[in-house]
């Protein structure tokens, strides 16, 4: 099942993107829901703060795996970041995605568009942990 939505380059799009992804994913174990929420928030934040363009969020659930991709129209490239300093206020977003996802990556096409995606293998939902 695949769904997509486009969001405005506005901070309020960050919680909207989280809710969109969680609604698209459906029932999911709480621990995974929390991790996915954080990763979506980080990627949406990158789009809003750095690209400052509309961005599209694509959610693909297939064969027990979740793939989320965030595409903006900003210039520049995405690079993997080293672990942040404890006292540093910046540079945590992609590091967090790297740590919480099973895999992540970037792609760019001709023209001003770049995507960051991550995948997570979904655990079987247990009624006591599903939300």
């Amino acid at each position, binding site marked *: 099942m695949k769904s997509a939505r486009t969001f405005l380059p506005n901070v309020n799009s*960050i919680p909207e993107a989280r809710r969109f992804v969680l609604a698209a994913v459906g029932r999911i174990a709480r621990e995974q829901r929390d*991790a996915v929420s*954080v990763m979506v928030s*980080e990627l949406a934040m990158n789009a809003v703060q750095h690209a400052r363009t509309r961005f599209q969020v694509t959610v693909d659930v297939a064969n027990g795996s979740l793939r989320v991709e965030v595409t903006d129209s900003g210039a520049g490239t995405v690079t993997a970041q080293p672990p942040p300093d*404890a006292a540093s206020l910046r540079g945590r977003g992609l590091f967090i995605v790297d740590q919480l996802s099973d895999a992540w990556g970037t792609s760019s096409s001709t023209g001003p568009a770049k995507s960051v995606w991550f995948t997570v293998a979904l655990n079987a939902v247990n009624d006591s942990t599903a939300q």
Partner: protein
Amino acid sequence: MAHIGPPGLGPSGQSSITVETRAEGSTPVIILSGELDLTNAERVQSAIEEMLTDGAERLVVETSGLQFMDSSGLAVLAFVARKVPVIELRDPSPIVRRLVELTGLAQILNVRP
């Protein structure tokens, strides 16, 4: 008590968070409830700053009601950690604890339990 954002979450609104304070002896306790993200991080930081007394040696940040936090919340905690020598992060959810640990913030915060 400072309530930031509308009650509940509107489809196009900012995230809702409540910042409350109380004291345990001379130690201020900040209680965060709701969702902390870029829509409200700046105001949460200001609210905490206003609640801090000059020369506070210790601060407790109670997070059992914090349903969501991303790196903008980590930035708030890192900022506050520069103002107060000892910060205890109390009752973080598993994901908040994980974020604090994997980003190295746990080295400068006292996480309990």
